């Protein structure tokens, strides 16, 4: 008996956008165009989605092209975030393609006077009893055939029968990128395009008192609205020169509004907070059996996206219609926020996505789009391109918030964890446009009458969202309490950065696990395995221990090995990492080993690339990165003052996929927490001292030694 397929509710993106024609089209020339609502930003998701479509339709991968996301033509799949694209977009496309395939086979069966069960598809050609029929998807796809709502879900091809999905496929976008063909939004040149630049205030809180009277060429347009100040010129070079003159002439009233960047703990603990329970389970008898109690505090600084490209956008006003080109991760939310911010109907605004440089969360892409829209308003009918400076990118894009995790736990006489308490202080992570009901676009606060942006929301305190992401340890602990303390003031604007709270929470939990293991006199790997109840969790820990050569490694002076593990969000992909750290004259991460289980894999090399990249970025965050600021402004403005790891400093990374037949989950963020934790634990062994405040620099090691 064929198992009854799950209802459409199991396909949230398809249920929200049920028209099949929204998802795919059979295009002239024997190609299939798919229209996911998820955007490509270097994570390779388009390639994986094309594989899904090719697989379900039985066409060659080379026939599938992916249409850029646009609010005008694409299904609204919300924001491309949370490592959900394969789950949401992949499942929707798979089901839409399966239904399209079924419709076309029915049409073929009618034409051929045969039963659908007699038919097969080979690269889009319809076969009957194994022989060509002369029919194909393209000859059968009458106009309007797919212009119907998805019906009850039909069975999809099981992974055992996959031949395109489940295998590594080369990325569709890389040929353009190795040859320098225009592909990025930054390369877009529209007819009649002008160039805008914005003069940002000289401090986080500053009011434009006077714009002065800069000596500008006559064709340069200055746009001023309250404390929003920008220029439009014929070329970017002219705009850049003009913006320098305008900045020099402007007079501002600066307010010192920032905390002390050398006392983040003091800042986090002194701010007003909203305190809510994340998870609470009580077992008084277990808690009472604790014979040893330990407590520790872990912090992370503010972190910058520091994308390779400053944010860029193009916008044009045609009468009451606004068209914008953006590398936002959420063009639909951006459309709505632009409309709300400018008092327009969302139907008046269209946002087309074009690729930017790598995005790791909510960066400046949305804000620069509003900048372009505001400047384009001054030159109706002309597209205006705005590019942020590197300095503005580092200081005005939202940052990943500073955090503090305070942990305490009790061990019983046998060395088992019986009670755990975790308190997490942070600004909110969910600060994207529209969240909490506010447009949340930078320039809106600077316009005349603009209000400061409200503190960022943090999402429901489920242990999967915001600062609570991975705040609940995934170990069998009978008595447990986790509390979120969300800051109600936001001196520095914060929002989503890859893995959200998981980066610190996993660093804290897994560092603490090692500290508890030491108390219990247990090996860190064995201690974790003793507390893991989920066999998939144990499998990745055992795998990484095995292939990193964890057991029986001889002790070396100044070298340490450490492990870190987490199941992302407590409900998604599993990741365990081992780090090799050298701590002689500096902190150096030499090698990383990672084992991951992300369920069914569409593109194995895509998963490995994402995990490798996440591991390297996490290493950079863990040992190097820290946003600095004085009492008025961000001061880490360039690659000199905000250094990231370089070629001579990055570790060698080895990744193994642990295969499991479980449903697919994302891979893009799973490495962030475990890698930082593995590095922290390795450093503790290499240096003989525990550093609990990120980044794990030479200075922090020395401070920890001095503090004993």
């Amino acid at each position, binding site marked *: 008996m064929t198992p009854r397929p799950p209802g459409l509710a199991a396909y949230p993106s398809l249920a929200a956008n049920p028209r099949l024609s929204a998802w795919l089209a059979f295009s002239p020339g024997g190609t299939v165009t798919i229209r996911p609502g998820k955007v490509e930003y270097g994570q390779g998701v388009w390639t994986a989605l094309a594989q899904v479509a090719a697989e379900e339709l039985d066409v060659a991968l080379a026939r599938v092209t992916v249409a850029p996301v646009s609010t005008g033509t694409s299904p609204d799949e919300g924001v491309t975030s949370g490592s959900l694209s394969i789950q949401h977009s992949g499942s929707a496309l798979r089901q839409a393609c399966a239904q399209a395939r079924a419709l076309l086979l029915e049409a073929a069966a009618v034409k051929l006077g045969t039963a659908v069960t007699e038919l097969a598809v080979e690269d889009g050609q319809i076969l009957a009893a194994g022989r060509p029929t002369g029919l194909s998807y393209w000859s059968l796809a009458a106009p309007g055939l797919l212009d119907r709502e998805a019906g009850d879900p039909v069975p999809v091809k099981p992974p055992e029968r996959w031949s395109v999905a489940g295998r590594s496929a080369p990325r569709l976008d890389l040929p353009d990128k190795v040859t320098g063909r225009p592909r990025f939004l930054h390369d877009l040149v529209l007819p009649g395009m002008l160039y805008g630049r914005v003069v940002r205030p000289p401090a986080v809180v500053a009011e434009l008192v006077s714009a002065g009277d800069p000596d500008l060429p006559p064709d340069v347009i200055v746009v001023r609205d309250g404390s929003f100040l920008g220029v439009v010129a014929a070329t970017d070079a002219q705009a850049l020169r003009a913006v320098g003159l305008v900045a020099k002439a402007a007079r501002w009233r600066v307010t010192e509004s920032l905390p002390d960047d050398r006392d983040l703990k003091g800042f986090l603990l002194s701010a007003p907070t909203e305190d809510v329970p994340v998870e609470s389970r009580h077992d008084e008898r277990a808690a009472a059996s604790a014979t040893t109690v330990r407590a520790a505090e872990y912090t992370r600084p503010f972190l910058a996206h520091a*994308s*390779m490209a400053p944010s860029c956008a193009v916008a044009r006003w045609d009468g009451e219609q606004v068209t914008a080109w953006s590398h936002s991760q959420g063009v639909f939310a951006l459309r709505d926020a632009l409309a709300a911010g400018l008092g327009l109907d969302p139907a008046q605004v269209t946002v087309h996505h074009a690729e930017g440089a790598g995005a790791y969360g909510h960066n400046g892409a949305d804000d620069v789009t509003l900048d372009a829209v505001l400047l384009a308003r001054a030159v109706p009918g002309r597209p205006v391109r705005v590019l942020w400076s*590197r300095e503005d990118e580092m200081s005005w894009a939202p940052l990943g918030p500073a955090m503090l995790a305070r942990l305490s736990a009790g061990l019983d006489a046998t060395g088992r964890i019986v009670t755990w308490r975790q308190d997490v202080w942070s600004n909110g992570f969910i600060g994207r446009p529209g969240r909490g009901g506010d447009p949340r676009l930078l320039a809106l606060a600077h316009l005349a009458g603009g209000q400061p942006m409200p503190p960022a929301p943090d999402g429901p305190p489920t242990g999967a969202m915001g600062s609570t992401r991975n705040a609940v340890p995934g170990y069998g602990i009978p008595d447990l309490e986790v509390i979120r303390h969300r800051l109600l003031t936001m001196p520095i604007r914060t929002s989503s950065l890859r893995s959200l709270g998981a980066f610190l929470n996993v660093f804290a939990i897994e560092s603490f696990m090692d500290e508890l293991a030491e108390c219990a006199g247990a090996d860190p790997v064995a201690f974790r395995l003793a507390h893991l109840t989920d066999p998939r969790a144990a499998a990745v820990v055992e795998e990484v221990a095995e292939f990193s050569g964890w057991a029986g490694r001889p002790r070396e002076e100044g070298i340490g090995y450490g492990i870190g593990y987490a199941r992302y969000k407590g409900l998604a992909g599993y990741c365990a990492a081992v780090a090799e750290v050298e701590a002689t004259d500096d902190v150096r991460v030499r090698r990383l080993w990672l084992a991951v289980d992300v369920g069914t894999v569409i593109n194995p090399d895509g998963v490995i690339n994402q995990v490798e990249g996440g591991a390297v970025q996490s290493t950079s965050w863990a040992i190097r990165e820290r946003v600095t600021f004085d009492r008025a402004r961000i001061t880490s403005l360039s690659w000199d003052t905000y250094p990231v790891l370089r070629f001579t400093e990055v570790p060698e990374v080895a990744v193994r996929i642990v295969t499991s037949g479980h449903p697919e989950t994302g891979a893009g963020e799973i490495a962030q927490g475990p890698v930082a934790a593995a590095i922290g634990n390795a450093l503790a062994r290499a240096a003989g001292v525990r550093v609990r405040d990120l980044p794990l620099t030479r200075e922090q090691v020395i401070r920890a030694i001095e503090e004993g």
Partner: protein
Amino acid sequence: MKQQELHLTVNGEDHTLACDPDLPLLDALRAGLGLAGPRFGCGLGLCGACMVIIDGKARASCDYPAWAAEGTEVTTVEGLPQDGALHTVQQAFLDEQAAQCGYCTSGMIVAAAALLTVNPGPTEQEVRAALDGNLCRCGTHGRVVAAVLRAAGHHDGGEQRARHGSGRAAR
């Protein structure tokens, strides 16, 4: 600002364009000649996204005055293919899938191509040192190093990663 005439030899072709005297070479290449390969990253010569080859040497073009490139041979990533075939470094980047977002890729490819011209058989350490001025925020460094080693004739540039047990699936 008064425009001046600029004579550049880029990817083997001579060009004359009118531009501001202080124009960076990057702007002359992108805005003047319509080449998208060299990319703006920081404007300070600190990230390598804008790298081009000037008389055989890879260097940042964002802080290099366009007039200073007069009389030199400038090669961008667009100029690397020969007779319609990708440069070995470009092909190796594809073979190793050595990119994520790809914004820094063209700068890395020209830096690697310049390295291999003067040092056809670099060690892994020499490759890393040569690329130290090229930043990558996506964390694809290991693949990039593997690609450059592959282009240098190492049969499988991935072996330095495979040595440590990386489970790269065969393509």
